[in-house]
């Protein structure tokens, strides 16, 4: 079941003469033949990746492991989930070949693919899958039944397949402190937080990856990654959203996702007084998201006053993201700000400081005093990647990451109205002020072939192959 996404030769069984002519032409123009050969998938080679994330554990079920795209992408290299989501957020078979649920969406049954082995050689069974899911989801009732796994939830879970596509629900086997997955690569070297070397599995159930191995350098900032790319020491690097425009303009090959990472201001506490509501609203109204996106972040995202991006929810435009200083000042009229609101940010993120300074200036225009700090604060600038292309799951996971109460959906309905109502409720609580949805991007060497960055920023490295160095040059 070899997947070949690039061009392949189609041979017409009817046009033998045509074939003969074609062979003749090929014989006459050897250069054309060479060019075509360069576009063919090629096995072998080591893909060198640099990334900013510096995880100290490879366990995808660990806390915070999905908060960075890098970690999520690492997870996909070594572990599989029962279900995957396509670019439209629709569940697709993976370790589970099929699934079905009862009408109440409380009980689900997944059929496990046969003939799969973990990286340690152990066969994948429904018992192993059930054990793996139970370990991560203690509130679920997970049973194995023959070659199927049954999941029972306390309440309706219409989006359970999408939940099972989350990295934390990766199927893995733990033995003697070691974890083993069913993914396309296996670990050959692991220097926590610094370097990871993976080797392709010849027996991967979806077919052997084209590349032999992947060397991942971790903890590299964007600047160092760019230097590594320029010097040819890395084949794939991450690109910061605010560098996307510039990197693109420097004739680099850049692939980016749809806006998938939420940048927002999150209040650490609920409203404490009646003044907090108008103040928070004034702050939201004073922020010039357009300038933030266009200038500070170099159009690396999209301004948004919603938690979910427009392309996922379809209704984000309903929440106004424009500046309304007059209304902001009107909100603050008669209110006396006792002390500046402290605005915290991650000092390790160089772009965050500029964003915060701009927000401080915007707030000042409205008459609101903010005090930037890299320590504990009343308000924090956060960047949270959306972990699922399923809107409901994405919103639920987002609230977890933001420390907000989980959204309340209406029964087992999966409708957009419910989603909107839940998100609107969250926004009305004024705990969070969405600013932008940022894209994730990667810069690649020309030798990296068949790179497809998913809409949610996920890599698909098993499909990547490395071209012959210099083959693309004229």
């Amino acid at each position, binding site marked *: 079941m070899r997947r070949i996404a690039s061009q392949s030769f189609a041979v017409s069984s009817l046009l033998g003469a045509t074939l003969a002519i074609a062979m003749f032409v090929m014989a006459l123009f050897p250069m054309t033949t060479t060019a075509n050969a360069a576009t063919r998938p090629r096995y072998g080679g080591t893909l060198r990746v640099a990334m900013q994330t510096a995880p100290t554990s490879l366990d995808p079920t660990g806390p915070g492991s999905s908060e960075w795209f890098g970690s999520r992408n690492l997870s996909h290299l070594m572990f599989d989930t029962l279900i995957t989501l396509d670019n439209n957020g629709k569940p697709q078979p993976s370790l589970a070949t099929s699934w079905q649920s009862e009408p109440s969406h409380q009980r689900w049954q997944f059929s496990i693919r046969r003939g799969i082995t973990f990286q340690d050689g152990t066969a994948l069974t429904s018992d192993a899958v059930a054990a793996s899911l139970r370990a991560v989801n203690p509130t679920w009732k997970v049973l194995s039944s023959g070659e199927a796994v049954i999941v029972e939830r306390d309440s309706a879970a219409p989006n359970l397949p999408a939940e099972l596509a989350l990295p934390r629900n990766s199927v893995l086997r733990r033995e003697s402190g070691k974890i083993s997955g069913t993914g396309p690569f296996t670990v050959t070297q692991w220097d926590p937080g610094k370097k990871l070397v993976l080797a392709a599995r010849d027996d991967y159930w979806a077919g052997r990856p084209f590349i032999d191995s992947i060397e991942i350098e971790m903890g590299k900032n964007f600047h160092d990654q760019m230097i590594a790319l320029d010097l040819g020491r890395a084949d794939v690097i991450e690109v910061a959203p605010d560098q996307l425009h510039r990197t693109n303009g420097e004739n680099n090959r850049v692939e980016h996702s749809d806006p998938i990472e939420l940048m927002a201001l999150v209040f650490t506490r609920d409203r404490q007084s009646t003044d907090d509501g108008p103040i928070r609203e004034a702050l939201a109204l004073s922020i010039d998201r357009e*300038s933030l996106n266009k*200038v500070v972040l*170099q159009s690396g995202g999209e301004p948004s006053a919603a938690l979910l991006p427009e392309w996922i929810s379809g209704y984000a435009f309903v929440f106004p993201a424009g500046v309304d200083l007059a209304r902001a000042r009107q909100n603050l009229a008669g209110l006396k700000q006792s002390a500046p609101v402290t605005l915290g940010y991650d000092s390790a993120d160089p772009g965050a400081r*500029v964003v915060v*300074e701009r927000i*401080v*200036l915007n707030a000042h225009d409205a008459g609101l005093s903010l005090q930037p700090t890299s320590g504990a604060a009343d308000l924090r600038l956060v960047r949270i990647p959306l972990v699922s292309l399923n809107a409901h799951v994405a919103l639920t996971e987002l609230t977890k990451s933001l420390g907000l109460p989980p959204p309340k959906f209406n029964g087992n309905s999966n409708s957009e109205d419910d989603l909107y109502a839940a998100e609107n409720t969250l926004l009305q609580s004024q705990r969070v002020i969405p600013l932008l949805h940022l894209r994730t991007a990667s810069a690649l060497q020309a030798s990296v072939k068949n790179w497809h960055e998913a809409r949610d920023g996920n890599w698909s490295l098993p499909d990547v192959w490395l071209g012959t160095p210099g083959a693309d040059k004229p």
Partner: protein
Amino acid sequence: MKFRRKLLAVFALTVFLSVATVALIVSAMTRRSFERANAESTTALVAQFRREFNRRGEEVVRRVETVASSESATRMALKLNHGTPDYSAYLDEAKSLAENQQLDFLEFVDNQGTIISSAQSPATFGYKDNFAFTANVPKDAFLKQEGPSEDPTLALSAIRQVNVGDRPLYVIGGRRLDKDFLASLELPTGMRALLYRNVGDIPFAPQFLTDASGPVPDADRIAQLIEQVERQRQETTALVHWSSNPADDETLHAIPLNGQANQLLGILLVGSSRRPYVELRQHIRSASLLAGGAGMILAILLSGWAAARVTRPVEELARAAREVADGNWNAQVTVQSTDELGELAASFNRMTHELLEQKERLVQTERVAAWRELARRLAHELKNPLFPLQLTVENLLRARQQSPEQFEEIFQESSSTLLAEISNLKTIISRFSEFSRMPQPHLQSVNLNEVVQNVARLFQAQLHTPGHPPIECKLELAESMQPITADPELMHRVFSNLVLNAMDAMPEGGVLTLHTHQNDEHAFIEVSDTGTGLTPEECERLFTPYYTSKTHGTGLGLAIVQSVVSDHGGRVSVRSEPGHGTTFEIELPKNNRNLSS
């Protein structure tokens, strides 16, 4: 106080005052020199600051000019003339150029003051710069405050204009004036430079004060100086006490730093530590104390030695004088020098020598006179009985020859006369013999009042002898007279002699007074009469043996009195005036334990 001690004290005081005076003078001169050097160093440092300021200013101007003439600035100016620039294209432009030109601050601003790109605050694009633009772009560098108004940074800035089209582009760049700038100044040891950022009308804020090493601890101590400079806008100098230790004191010279619009943006403080001066002063004091102490010890030793040299002859003279006073007329001092003290010693020796000779001559003269007097008295005393003896013997011889019949009768009468006169001769001889053999006193406890009363009773009858004018005897005896150690018989004889002497002095009658009194150590007995009195010459010779002013008597009575009183460790004196009677006073020690009995 002894002369030696006085001399020593004068020497020590002189040395101390000398050292103290020298120390004060040296200290004052040191302070003056230090302050002069301090002022010179401050002036030099201020000049250095201004040179460095100008040099950096020129450097900033050059760098800003480089930026203004760059292609980036030209492109930006061109865009500016085509409408509102795309801020996103220039977000990092200023930062990048500032890094290239090593500028801490760089901003591109349009003619409305709108920031197009800012290196120090990239987020301020589209906002107005608070710099007051004037028609004329300043040629030189100037001071400017950068950053938030509540916590500004002082910058040495320059501005240049890029003229492409109608809308000029301003390039404002600068370098930070902070601790690194202060650290670049070459400061002499003990000096430092501090910088205070002035923030509008905010009173002194310690966090705005820095020196080359960072924030200044206890910065509040210079608040007064800062506020004074803020008020007066002129250079001011003050002494700042950083702690209770004077060595931590620092003289701060404050120089106001004004901006382009003559607003006070900062204050440069040139600090000069007083530690070297205080330590030098301590050293001077210590050295002075040491020198003073050593000087005083040396002075004591030297003055002791000198005083000894000076006073030893004087003390020897004093000792010799005391010996002379005690009767050793042969006392001599050693002449050790030829100076005035040597002359004094020699004169003293000559004096005692002369006195001794004179005394010997006087003694010899007195001895001759005494012998003469003795001879005269003996002759007188012996002549009186001898003359009747001669007449009696001649009568006997004449009677045997001329009247043998009456010889027997005359022989009998003459024999009686001869025997009487021979007896008289014996008496005279025995008195002289008795005087020559005065017995040693047998000491015992004696109540003088009783002795005096016994004597008065003994002579009571003679005082009222019929045919003689009466003499009244008055006893004025001290109450509770303590007994003394004396020989009662000799005392009785002394008082008897004095009473007899008084009676002889009052042939016309009068009053005899016997008076006793005492103090802690002595008992006193006075015998007074109201007789004719004595002349001073008589008083002088009164106690000379065999001297008498009377027509009868041996002249031994008062000599015996003096002899007995002397044997008791006492003394006898007389005071008298002619016509006013005479008083003999005897002073006896109460305790004669030291006398051999």
